[in-house]
Structure formats: C-alpha cells, structure tokens
C-alpha cells in the first residue's frame, strides 16, 4: 500500500473497565469508500475517534494518510476531514460563519476563504440558507453543512460517522450522491460508519463488519453475501388458516427467520432449492398465494458471523423521568 490511505494493526482502545475496540486490523486503499458496519455499541465511533486522533489508542498502531496517529497527530488532522456522529454545530452562528471560522482555523487566507466557502455552500445546496442561524436548519441541512465543514481544507481522507442517521430518504440519497462523487471525481478516501445495511450495500466499495469491538467479516458486499450463499424463501398461503401448514413444509428446508406479516420465511441451508420447495407444497396440498426468493443480505452475513441480527438489535436506553 502506498501509505496514503488508512491502515490499522491490532488497534485497541480501552476506557476504564470497558474495551470498546479489541484489536482491529484494517486497510483502506486511497480513493476507496470503506463501510464500517455494526450495531450501536460495537466500537465504530471509538475506532473513528482513534483514527482521527481525538483519542490515543490503548494499544496497536494506525497510520492515516501516511502519518502515525499517535506521534504525528497534527499532520493526520491536516489531511483528514471528519463529520462525526453529532452534527457539532453552533446554533448561534450562520452557515457562512461556520465556514469562515473553520477555514480560518485551518489557516486559509481571507480571499480563498470566501471563494471556498461559496463553492462549498453551492455544492451542498445551502447558498440560500447560508446567512440563517443554524438553529433554524433542518436535520438534513445540518448534516450537509457538517459535510461542507469537513471538506473546507480539501482533505484527502474523509471520515463520516453515521452521516445519515435521522435523515429523510431524500436527504440521505443526496448525501450518498455527494459522497460517491467525492470518491469518484476527487479521489477522496472515505471511511464511513453506519448501522444501515442499505447504506453500506449501496455506497461502500468494501465493508468491514464490526461487533463487540472486533471485525468479524470484511470484503465487498457481494463477496460477503456470496460467502453465506443462503437465500431466504418467503411464502404466504392463499388461506390464512394454512399458515401453520406452510411453516411445516418450509421448516424442512432451513431455519425459520423473520418474514412479513401473514407469511413464513426460512433461510435455505442446502437441503433443497426453490424447485424443491414448490414440489413440497404441491405434495402437502398447500396452496400458496405468494412465493419469494430473497438473496442474502448483509444482515444475514452479520447473523452468520455473530449469531444475532444487526437490524433491530438496538438496546433500549433507560431514561429517568
């Protein structure tokens, strides 16, 4: 590797009694979009904080843009941009003032600050709202400003920590387009953490799946799914009273899994294919209204590697009244 991407070896980060990151090895090539997929509490944000020099590693090494995160922090920071989990904006400043502050702190001269600020506002679609205080911005607008601020000093590597959490589909799609464009047209390396399967699937060139502080699988989305090679069959009976009979037939072909209401789904485990399933329904005299075959998802990959699902795996947090 040329040393201009991201490289981590045995990366560990501990907090008092908790090991949030338990030995991560990863390599992200320059210009690649790397998706870091995992549930809440898996260690995604902690990994990002270490790679962006906000936290020192407890053990292991990491190099970002060719610089050691432990000993060359300022050089790392000069090469990276980051949009972290919180939008991290000042509600009392306008969008334009944020860009002015950010670029000034990066040492950009007055004339270039102005030009760069207008360019970024245009790029993220905030020109008209630029002189409004951020407290009046929607969630999507805040995220777009966040991205613009991360790009102010033309970083070669961009860290995005759950950038589309809480956004509506339109805003999410717009952000994906911009991220894709940055990697494709400007060669920016993107390290993206997410808990959304679709985001990793659509956006990432390669995906690393993290659970409990360790990477449990890594590869392109297609490679990971092919590794599992277990499609899901879902069937719904013509008569609702036959749901039980449908389940009895399907369970011969694999383990039952989450299906839509009024249907039964199983993950095929090699005991037969779709044609076998159809013949089995015929033999049992069960009339099926809908029969669907789903290719494995990254959630299936996660389940295979960790024993639990990624989607719907969030723990409720208790709140005091």
């Amino acid at each position, binding site marked *: 590797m040329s040393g201009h991407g991201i490289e981590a070896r045995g990366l560990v980060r501990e907090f008092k009694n908790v090991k949030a990151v338990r030995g991560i090895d990863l390599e992200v090539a320059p210009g690649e979009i790397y998706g870091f997929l995992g549930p809440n509490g898996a260690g995604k944000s902690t990994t990002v904080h270490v790679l962006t020099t906000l936290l020192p590693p407890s053990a292991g090494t990491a190099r970002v843009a060719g610089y050691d995160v432990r000993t060359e922090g300022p050089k790392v*920071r000069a090469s990276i941009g*980051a949009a972290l989990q919180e939008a991290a*904006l000042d509600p009392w400043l306008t969008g334009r*003032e944020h860009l002015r502050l*950010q670029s000034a*702190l*990066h040492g*950009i001269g007055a004339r270039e600050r102005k030009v760069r600020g207008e360019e970024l506002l245009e790029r993220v679609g905030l020109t008209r709202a630029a002189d409004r205080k951020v407290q009046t911005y929607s969630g999507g607008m805040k995220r777009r400003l966040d991205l613009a*601020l991360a790009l102010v000093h033309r970083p070669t590597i961009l860290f995005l920590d759950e950038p589309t959490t809480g956004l509506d589909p339109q805003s999410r799609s717009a952000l994906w387009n911009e991220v894709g464009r940055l990697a494709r047209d400007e060669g920016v390396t993107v390290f993206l953490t997410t808990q959304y399967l679709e985001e990793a699937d659509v956006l990432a060139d390669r995906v690393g799946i993290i659970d409990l502080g360790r990477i449990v699988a890594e590869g392109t989305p297609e490679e990971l799914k092919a590794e599992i090679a277990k499609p899901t069959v879902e069937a719904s009976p013509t008569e609702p009273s036959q749901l039980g009979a449908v389940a009895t037939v399907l369970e011969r072909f694999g383990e039952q899994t989450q299906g839509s209401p009024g249907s039964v789904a199983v993950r095929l485990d090699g005991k037969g294919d779709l044609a076998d399933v159809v013949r089995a329904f015929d033999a049992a005299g069960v009339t099926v209204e809908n029969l669907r075959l789903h290719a494995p998802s990254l959630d299936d990959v996660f389940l295979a590697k960790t024993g639990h699902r990624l989607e719907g795996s969030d723990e409720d947090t208790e709140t005091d009244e």
Partner: protein
Amino acid sequence: MRHGLAHQIAFIAWRSVKRTLRQPAVLIPPLVFPLMLMAVNSSGLRAATHLPGFPTDSFLAFFLPFSFMQGALFAASTAGTDLARDVDTGFLNRLALTPLRGWALLVGQLGGATVQGVVQAFVYLSVGLAFGVRFVTGSGGILALLLLSILIAIGWAAVGIWLALRTGSGEAVQSQFPLLFFLLFISSMNMPRNLIEVDWFRDAATLNPVSYMIEGLRTLIIGGWDAQALVLAFGMTSALIVAALTLSAVALRQRMART
C-alpha cells in the same frame, strides 16, 4: 497559511462575541437583576448609613460594587454554559480537528465575557451616576473602576470555563453557581468588614478574595486612592485569572485528548 496564536485567538473571540450578542437571554438578566437588587438594597439598607463608623451616607454608593460582582458571576455563567454546550454537542471535537491551539481556545473564549463585562460595567456605572453616586477619585477613578470590573468579569468567566471543561455539561455548570454566589454572600458586600459583628462571618469575609475585589471597587467610589485596597483588588483578580486559566488548560488537555 496563517496559524498564528493571535490569529486563532481573534477568530475564537469573534465567534464568542457573536454568540453572546445574539442571545438576549444572556445579556438582559445580568443587566436587570443586579440593578433591581441595587435599587432594593440601597433603599432597604439605607438605615445602615446611620451606624457609627459607616464610611458614607449613601448606601447606593456603598453597594454599587455588588452589581459589578454579580455581573461578573453572570459572565462566568455565560462563558461556562457556552463552552459546556460545545463539549456536549461535539463542537469541541470539531475545533480539536483543526490546528487550533489550546491556549487560543481558552483566551478566545473570554471574548464574549469581555464584551459582556464592558456592557454591564457601563450600564451599572451610568445608573449609579444618574442616581447621584459621586466618585471621590474623579474621572481617573471611573476609568480604574471600569478596568478593574472588566478584569473581574474576565477572571470569573475563566472560572466558568474551567467548570465547563471539568464537567462537560451546561446543567452541571449551572448547578455550581450557587457556590459562587455563596462566595459573594460571605463577603463585605453588605457591610464594611470592620463593622461585621459576627466573628466567624468577619473572619470568613477576610479570607474571601471576593471581599478584596469589592473593596477595591468601593474605594474608587467612596474611599479614595487607597493603594493597599487597589493592590489587593488587582492582585486578587490577576491571581484569579491566572489560576483559572491554568486549571482550564489542564482540564482542556484532559477533555481534548487529541494526539
């Protein structure tokens, strides 16, 4: 590329000033409450001027320094709450990812408190003068009072910044403020130290640096150019600024643990 300390301080201060001026809820109470208390106490305690040894026959003139001290605590609250919000929202992480130096952040953050201190000082002074307070030290004393009061506001704002960096939460900062008000209460704010009858209270007021800040302001109004009082006032204030900024620097290093 301009990464100079002065340049960074200037931009952080610019942001701090903008934020302060855009929050009427931050600017107005520090003007209203001290003036209300000044009005009420200067009338309610007027009888104190009949006590043997009371240094003036105008309780308003005696009590005016309290407004500056209370204003300084409001400045502390503003500075602390604003920075705590930065910690809470992750804005401090955003700043940490730039070449911003720690000292630039600390000194720049005082920009808003300085503006607040200046505005407050002018308002309290104007009201005092309008209601008949006369400075025995003349216009030189007025300038010295303005300088001292602004420095006091900066000193307490630095304390607010330290609290913000230690706790990282606006609510926690706010919850510490009763303790700071306690310092104000156990001082010579209401009565000259030599007239405080209760021994333990007088001793506590004597140990309390706030008493010397108040007495420094007070001597410029009713006492004259008392070198000892002024040296103690400016000295205590300077010590407060240095101590609070040093503690803040340590807290910032822990809070902003970047490599």
